């Protein structure tokens, strides 16, 4: 990949917030959503393989919660919205 020569203007960086850490999208266990449903939702929303989706679903089931994605805040909020559309119990927390 080619890079054009020249200077790069650096944006002002807010020192107080470490944006690089991102936000976790967390899914919590609930007794009503089917295991097969949760796997399907993870595959569709995040494009995960069946194996990864199943592993995360089992983590939710056994541990009570699982971090299903880590992303910048805006993306984490969109993920959370989509999971809420599917009826999953999803929340967002700082990494």
């Amino acid at each position, binding site marked *: 990949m080619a890079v054009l020569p020249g200077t790069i203007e650096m944006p002002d960086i807010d020192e107080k917030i470490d944006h690089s850490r991102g936000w976790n999208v967390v899914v919590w266990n609930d007794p009503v*959503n*089917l295991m097969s449903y949760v796997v399907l939702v993870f595959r569709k929303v995040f494009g995960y393989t069946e194996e990864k989706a199943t592993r995360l679903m089992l983590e939710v089931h056994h541990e009570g919660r699982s971090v299903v994605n880590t992303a910048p805040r805006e993306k984490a909020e969109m993920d959370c*919205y989509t999971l809420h559309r599917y009826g999953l119990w999803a*929340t*967002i927390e700082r990494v």
Partner: protein
Amino acid sequence: MARFGRSRPGFIRLRLREEEVDALSLMEDLLSSVGLREGDPAEERLTVPAYPDDAEAQDEYGRFMASELEGQRRRDRAAVFRLLQDARAGPLDLALDEAEAWLMVLNEARLALAARLGIEEEGWGELEEGEGPPTPAKMLLIYLTEVQGGLIEALADQI
């Protein structure tokens, strides 16, 4: 005969008996009643906060997302209940986005019923001996769960 089955690529065949159309139509009244009375557990379950421990962040998130979610759910329901009535005339081919709407509306109805039944633990689908017959709401929940199971299988094949 499976309710949701294979069709041409990108579609799912929906085949319902008349009495199933009637049973599934119960979802319409159920879902339109969510939030009508104060403290409805169904409403609480369907409006999970993204930031449960941060009121300010939740306010901001909710301002953008709550009405968006409600509008999307309303569109999904309208599509599903229209298709449900179409299904009286015979088998239908659902496009994948229509099948997705079915998946979400079935789940919304299941979550609403379970919340009102006060279900907090797994194993609710198993009927205890000597417990007597399940309530109509519980029977509907079990039925919708079976219907949804078939749709999940059909959609999982299409990913």
